[in-house]
Every structure is written in structure tokens, then in C-alpha cells.
């Protein structure tokens, strides 16, 4: 399976996702944001980091890159797109995903391992996970507080487009397990066609037992399935 990781000035989790993809046997290429053409890809990844320093608004400036038009075209043609952390922010700025990521409720950067629940295990990104499986996964962000309007929220719920929700070890979705104040503990969402996934936690940080755990592996295995 072929993947393309878009690298913006200030992206800094690009190497991490490339390492994870290659470990999972993807044929990966790194694409500089100034490119105007995307190679034929099965999966496009917008990595985590601080593209453009998060200046103005996180992801706002990256969202205006030349390459984004190609990403939008590919996404509309059904290509799989994965936006992680800053990548998720960029997806909302481009409109490929609705909603927005606001400043964390406690106004501080948070880096820790938290739990998320797999809300929909029937997508290209999640079919290797069990329904309601609880994953231990790393977050590292300043603006991870997902917010959207009532219409979109209803749409997300009715069409099973919520990918992950923050929860505790037992799988209970509650206030205490919400690290950043996200609306209804939402940690990741799909678009209506379910070919685009935006998520705040970092699955690429969870593929190596020595460093953390391997709860992220099944996201990549699902894609290869």
C-alpha cells in the first residue's frame, strides 16, 4: 500500500509517522508542501507538529499550502486521508472535516498517555479493532479541544462518524477522562464518506513496545486489510 506524508514547515512528527508506516510495510514517500502534484497514493497523511509555528491559528496557514488542493482533490476521489494532531487541525481549517480544535480547557499544553474508546470499528481505519475497544494512546497538544455546531454533532452521532472518545481504563466516557474539554469527549472523527479520519492522539507513538505499547498498530493493520 502506498502512502504519502505531507511535510509542512514546522511539522515535526513526520519522521515518526514515516517510521511507523514503513514498519507496517507501507511504501511511503515524503511530500514537501511546495509540491504541486501528489504521487498516486492509497493513503495521505497530514502529520503532527507545529506547522507554521501554530501561528495565527493552528493549521490555518498550512491549510493554504499549494499541496492542499491536491489533497482535497484526492480526498474527494475517495483517497484515504489521515490527519494526526496538527494534521487534524489542518483538515478542519481546509473544510475536509467540519468542526474546529480550540485551546485546551486548562489553557496548557498536555502530554500524557490517555485512553480512548473505538466508537466505530467498521471503517478502513478501524476494522482490526474490537467494538468499544479501549486503547492507551499518547496525546501532546495545546489546541485539542474539539468543538462543532449542533447540526454537525447530530450528524456525527446519527451516522456513526465519531471515531474515538476519551475514556477511562474501564471504557467509561466521563469528564475526568477528558484531557482537554472536547465536546462529548470526542478525540477523532470521520467525514461522511469515512475516507478521512482526523484524530488528536498519536497512533504513530504506539507501535513500539520498548517506547510505549502497540495499541496503535491495528490502525495501520486495518488500512492494509
Amino acid at each position: 500500500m502506498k502512502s504519502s506524508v505531507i511535510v509542512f514547515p514546522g511539522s515535526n512528527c513526520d519522521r515518526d509517522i514515516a517510521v511507523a508506516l514503513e514498519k507496517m510495510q507501507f511504501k511511503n514517500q515524503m511530500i514537501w508542501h511546495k509540491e504541486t502534484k501528489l504521487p498516486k497514493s492509497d493513503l495521505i497523511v497530514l502529520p503532527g507538529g507545529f506547522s507554521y509555528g501554530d501561528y495565527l491559528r493552528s493549521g490555518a496557514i498550512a491549510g493554504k499550502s499549494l499541496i492542499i488542493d491536491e489533497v482535497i482533490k484526492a480526498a474527494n476521489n475517495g483517497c484515504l486521508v489521515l490527519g494526526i494532531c496538527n494534521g487534524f487541525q489542518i483538515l478542519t481549517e481546509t473544510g475536509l472535516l467540519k468542526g474546529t480544535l480550540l485551546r485546551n480547557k486548562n489553557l496548557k499544553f498536555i502530554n500524557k498517555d490517555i485512553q480512548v474508546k473505538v466508537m466505530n470499528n467498521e471503517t478502513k481505519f478501524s476494522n482490526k479493532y474490537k467494538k468499544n475497544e479501549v486503547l492507551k494512546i499518547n496525546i501532546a497538544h495545546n489546541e485539542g479541544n474539539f468543538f462543532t455546531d449542533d447540526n454537525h454533532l447530530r450528524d456525527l452521532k446519527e451516522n456513526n462518524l465519531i471515531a474515538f472518545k476519551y475514556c477511562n481504563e474501564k471504557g467509561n466516557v466521563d469528564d475526568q477522562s477528558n484531557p482537554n474539554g472536547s465536546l462529548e469527549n470526542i478525540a477523532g472523527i470521520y467525514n461522511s464518506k469515512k475516507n478521512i479520519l482526523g484524530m488528536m492522539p498519536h497512533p504513530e507513538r504506539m507501535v513500539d513496545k520498548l517506547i510505549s505499547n502497540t495499541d496503535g498498530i491495528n490502525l495501520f493493520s486495518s488500512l492494509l486489510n
Partner: protein
Amino acid sequence: MKFSITVTLKKDVLDPQGKVVQNTLVNLGMNLKNIRQGKYFEVEVEEKDQIKAEREVNEMCKKLLVNLIIEDFKINKI
């Protein structure tokens, strides 16, 4: 009484955000010489005497809203 407070970076202080925003606008085909990013507040106070009210707003700026080391501010009655 309502006031607006505009907070800007002092003249010689680096504005990393303004720099990036300027380059992006230029890349989008816009024409501009310079842009600096600041903050804007609107505050409503109970005090009815304008001079006293402005003094209060001034206090707010000095005590909290403005980083006097690197920022300037302007108060305007709305």
C-alpha cells in the same frame, strides 16, 4: 461605560506571527508592506465618570491584560 483596548507589540519587538502571516498573504497574491498581530479587548465598567472609568481600565491593562515588557496599549471609549 464601554471601552476597547488594543494591545500591540512594541515597535522593536519581533513578531513571529506577523512575519508568517505576511508571507502567507503575499503567497496568496495580496499586496502588503507589513502586518503585525495584536490583541483586542472590549470591557464594560460600572463607573459612570469617564475619567475615573478610563483610570480603572488603565489599571486593568497594567495589572493583567498587557505585558508591559513587550507590549503597548491604547484605550478608546466605545
